[in-house]
């Protein structure tokens, strides 16, 4: 680092020396990653406060019903033949069949839990017949017969 000469005084001793340090460190972006938890926690806090302060209703009034049906229509008309997707009426626009896999961003509102038994069996059968060709899957199909 550069040295700046200090003041003199006693002519017998060498003068005191100031050192100028300019150590900014490294660009430690990597260490910012442990703020990830902080960010999740903060947005959760914001949501919780919002839930306290701003009661939001998801109920559909006039135009909202129209919206819902518009969306539903879009989904239905875009459904491709042979896929076997049956538009099922749900209380929220997006419903799910059984969702056993984890939801990292928190669960969606009340999922529509269609009866596991028959819907699931039908779905599995349809999908397997149309897409899968492994022996195990074929065996399962056999087992259902």
């Amino acid at each position, binding site marked *: 680092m550069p040295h*700046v*000469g*200090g*003041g*003199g*005084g*006693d*002519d*017998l*001793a*060498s003068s*005191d*020396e*100031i*050192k*100028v*340090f*300019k*150590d*900014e*460190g490294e*660009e430690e972006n990597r260490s*910012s990653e442990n*703020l990830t938890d*902080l*960010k999740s926690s*903060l*947005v959760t806090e*914001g*949501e919780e406060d*919002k839930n306290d302060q*701003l009661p*939001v209703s998801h109920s559909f009034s006039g*135009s*909202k019903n129209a*919206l819902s049906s518009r*969306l539903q229509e*879009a*989904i239905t008309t*875009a459904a491709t033949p042979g896929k076997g*997707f049956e538009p099922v009426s749900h209380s*929220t626009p*997006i419903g799910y*069949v*059984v969702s*056993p*896999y984890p*939801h*990292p*961003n928190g669960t*969606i509102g009340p999922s529509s839990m269609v009866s*596991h038994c028959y819907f699931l*069996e039908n*779905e*599995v059968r349809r*999908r*397997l017949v149309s897409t899968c060709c492994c022996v195990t899957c074929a065996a399962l199909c056999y*087992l*259902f*017969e």
Partner: protein
Amino acid sequence: MWHQGDKRDRDQVVFESSQGGFTQDQMEEITQQLIQTRSQRVRASMFPETLEEGIEIPSTQFDPEAPTAVQRLAEPSQMLKHAIVNLINYQDDADLATRAVPELIKLLNDEDQVVVSQAAVMVHQLSKKEASRHAIMNSPQIVAALVRAMSSSSDVETTRSAAAALHNISNHRQGLLAIFKSGGIPTLVKLLSSPVEAVLFYAVTTLHNLLLHQEGSKMAVRLAGGLQKFVMLLQRNNVKLLALVTDCLQILAYGNQESKLIILASGGPAELLRIMRSYTYEKLLWTTSRILKVLSVCSSTKPALVEAGGLHALAIHLGHQSQRLVLNCLWTLRNLSDAGTKQENADRLLQSLVQLLESNDVNVVTCAAGILSNMTCNNQRNKVVVCQIGGIEALVRVIFHAGDREEITEPVVCTLRHLTNRHPEAEIAQNTVGQINGIQVIVKLLHPPSRWPLVKAVIGLIRNLAVCPANQIPLREHGTIPTLIQLLVKSYMVTQKERSSPASESDVNPDGVQMDEIVENAVGALHILARDPHNRALITAHQIIPIFVQLLYSDIENVQRVAAGVLCEISADKEGAEQVEAEGATAPLSDLLYSSNEAVAVYAAAVLYRMSQGKPPEYQKRLSAELTNSLFRESAPWGPTNHGREANPRNPDEMYRNKMYLENQGDRYGDDRADGSYPKQRPRHERGRNDYGAVDSTVILELTPMVSSAHPDESPDQVAAWYDTDL
């Protein structure tokens, strides 16, 4: 197992089990039953949740130890079931989202604000699930629509949902890019002023992700006025928010001078220091210390930080258990320290620093020593405080443990050099070093592998230590004199070579140290060492006097001064004086009598006087006259002396020693300049002029008695003619 029995005896027991024996007919019936209930067993294995309660299914398991094939397949088939369901749902999500996106874009751009709001809510919901999130990220149009909705909407719900959706996609590279490309940054920066906390939090976290991972974001945030907004947010009290905001500031300001100036202009330093003083949340203290570190290298923000009490605020945390916090505070303090030498009440800081010298962490010790070096520079009070709290002992201990790690020993030696001169307890400090057996380990640092910056600092310290008479013996015993002479010769040769033929910069200034500074410091140290008669003899025996004499011809006043000074000591002995004269010192010394530097003139006079002892009285008389003329000439820069004073005839040696005593002791403790300024580095040939305090005029007066018959009307030029030398 069982097998079909003979036809002739269908009533015969063909199978035995714990339930008793079974006939052929019975077995056939059982088999039929089992076949019919097969699918029930499979269903029970794969989908137990679908069975009616209470139903009893016959089992094919006859051996309790041996599970049936279906039983063995139960677990793997459950897993397969789950995997397939997951696939179905994932694919559903993705399909659904992909189909919904175009429609959602239209809805987000609708004129009806309620429609927009609900569309935003839907997009937010979609953004929470992985598969549908990908659909959003892969659609630049929907991201742009979200940004637009967020920007133009006055509805809180719309803004919040859109911000939340953007936050969700900002955890992915694709999402970050989409946000960046659709101009999301200026909108997000605007939202930093939102009164709705949820919105603010989303904006901050999204911007943080962008700053971390999306190229171009830093510039965009700066251009959008993000720095000022972030500084405003420093007034908040939410510690998590503050941690993110300070981290954003650090990312923006690192290596960017303009950003630092903007932060300064917005009042950043005061708020950041407030945080350091007020909070205990470690993450926040750490992130804040990092932005402070970045600001502390800027020459404009540095004084502002010091004036706002930065040294004290940082010193608070030097005892914290978080090592990363302590280190960042130390680095920041070190950066600030050259601007902080005038700070009052630095006692707490100094105390902590001396304690930190005991640390096992190299970085901690190095920083602490560097800060101490600056804090003790030209500051008497700090020097005294450090000495009184055991600083000398702690520093010497560091040298013991540091070995050849120069990054540690150099600032430590510099600090010791400061502590051993120019304050009321300097003598005690010098003595203490000797008492704790520090001299050997210090002298060792003169040798390789020490590089020139360290060597230079050690020479200066040795010079100070030699002032204490008790240290002269250990200094000699540990071979200081031969080593110093060796270094002197080496550095002198380089300076001579440089004069005769051009040399490269690294030859003349190896490791960035000027060799004529080594020459000056080495001779200065030998000057003080030469006070001891044994040392004098040793120095003389090394045949170094010729170099001392040559140095009298130097252009640099400092070099002239130390050379004349050491010759003055050497000439205290008769043999020494003779040798000095024999080496032709008279001529250059006669010139130096007329130096504008008073110390140089006085030393020169003293040497000439000593050399004249034993010469014929007439010679001595003429010399005295000459000396008087030179020292008391009107053109002397140190001004006329008080001629009316009564003076006692005194031995010039004693006068000289008095001069040395006065200068060492108390009347000039250092140059704590009132205005706090520091002289800038001056060219070598100019240094030395008026840098030093005037020699006490009474000492000069005391030289006059040797002038028994002065010839004031004789001009110096005429008198000089009697010198039998080539001038």
